[in-house]
């Protein structure tokens, strides 16, 4: 029994035995950041590959107007979602994302970033 438990623990600790919930690892522009230059696109990198067909990213300004263009596409083997943005004037922008990882787990989140005057 001790051997079985040890092996189980080791298998889980040493790597990703399976795909899992996709958590946001980092974003460009970064979560809560202020940028001087309007970004042409928003990049969201997750801890697991995601399915673009079942993932949505919305970027809105302070009035709720949509600032994203087109559907998101993936890079880095599905771990990064890229969505093009309109030319953003200075202001605060709200990002809302819903993703489905390749093993069908769903996660969601939202954050803001700011384009400085």
């Amino acid at each position: 029994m001790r051997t079985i438990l040890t092996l189980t623990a080791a298998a889980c600790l040493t790597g990703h035995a399976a795909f899992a919930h996709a958590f946001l690892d980092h974003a460009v522009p970064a979560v809560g950041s202020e940028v001087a230059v309007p970004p042409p696109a928003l990049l969201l990198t997750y801890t697991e590959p995601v399915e673009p067909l079942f993932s949505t990213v919305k970027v809105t300004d302070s009035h709720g107007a949509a600032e994203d263009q087109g559907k998101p596409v993936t890079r880095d083997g599905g771990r990064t979602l890229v969505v093009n943005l309109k030319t953003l004037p200075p202001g605060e922008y709200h990002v809302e994302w819903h993703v489905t990882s390749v093993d069908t787990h769903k996660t969601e989140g939202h954050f803001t970033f700011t384009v400085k005057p």
Partner: protein
Amino acid sequence: MKTRSWLAALCAGGLLTSYHAIMNQALAHGFAGDHMFISTLLIDDPNVADEASLPTFVYQPQSNDGGPIPNLYQVGFEFDKRITENFGFAINEGYNWITQPGAKTANGWQSLVVTLKDKPYVNDAHEFIMSVGVQRVIAGFGAQGENGAAIGNDPSSSTIPTYYFGKGFGDIPIGWIRPFALTGEIGYQIADQKLKVDPYGNPVNNGISNGWTGGLSLQYSIRYLSAQVKDYGLPDFVNKLTPVVELSWSSAASKPTQDTTQYLWGIGVNYTATTYALGLEALVPGNRNTGSHLGVIAQFHLYFDDLLPNSLGKPIAEWF
């Protein structure tokens, strides 16, 4: 009557004072909107999930009226399984040792606990989740030996209707507060056989009193801070940490009783990876009935929904 004798002796010696505060360690995690609630160590969390705790280890010095301090060691196991998406069961069992200088070690299995749990409501926008459950504490399941095997093995079975909740603070418009979450549970333990005592207060049957049990946890998710509020560029290891403070509580709700009101704090941190979690907390007595010395609780937790998403990690109803 051996059970009663051992319990009476242990209670008289102050050995069982903090047992009930840590007996119900049903553990799981769940999402409500953006927030993921961690697997807590002292109380059950509000989610219904496919998970296991293999194992949970507890060390806790007990209270004592005099003489050497007895120490409780406990190894607990839990298995959580969904039957449907929001309905499932859990099985808890554990083995206890109590050591005391100059005395023979007392050891034995604790009561088996089986829980049915349903999660009828989740509000993603407000990061709120609630569930209801019924715990069945099956007495006499463990050994009844003379060496103290009745430790933690109630003399009477009981049923505990329980309410669970979790609330993330993500809808509060203050950035640094949003990673907080509060979870809790409250249950009412209904004994199959009520305790009866003689005119001197001595038990005359194998009954127990009814009781209240519950607890709260306050969590601060670093992952939520970095992914939803502001990315400070923290190392990946730090982003997976959730500092947590838990308080578990139990008290008698009927007389006569041999139970005392107990408060026990757990202060520590949870490391949540994709397929497993590690939890480590210091156990801090909340009143004299839970002792006067620090203990520790640690747990290795598996998330089967991520580890085995196409078999053990999905509801039984979806297997066919």
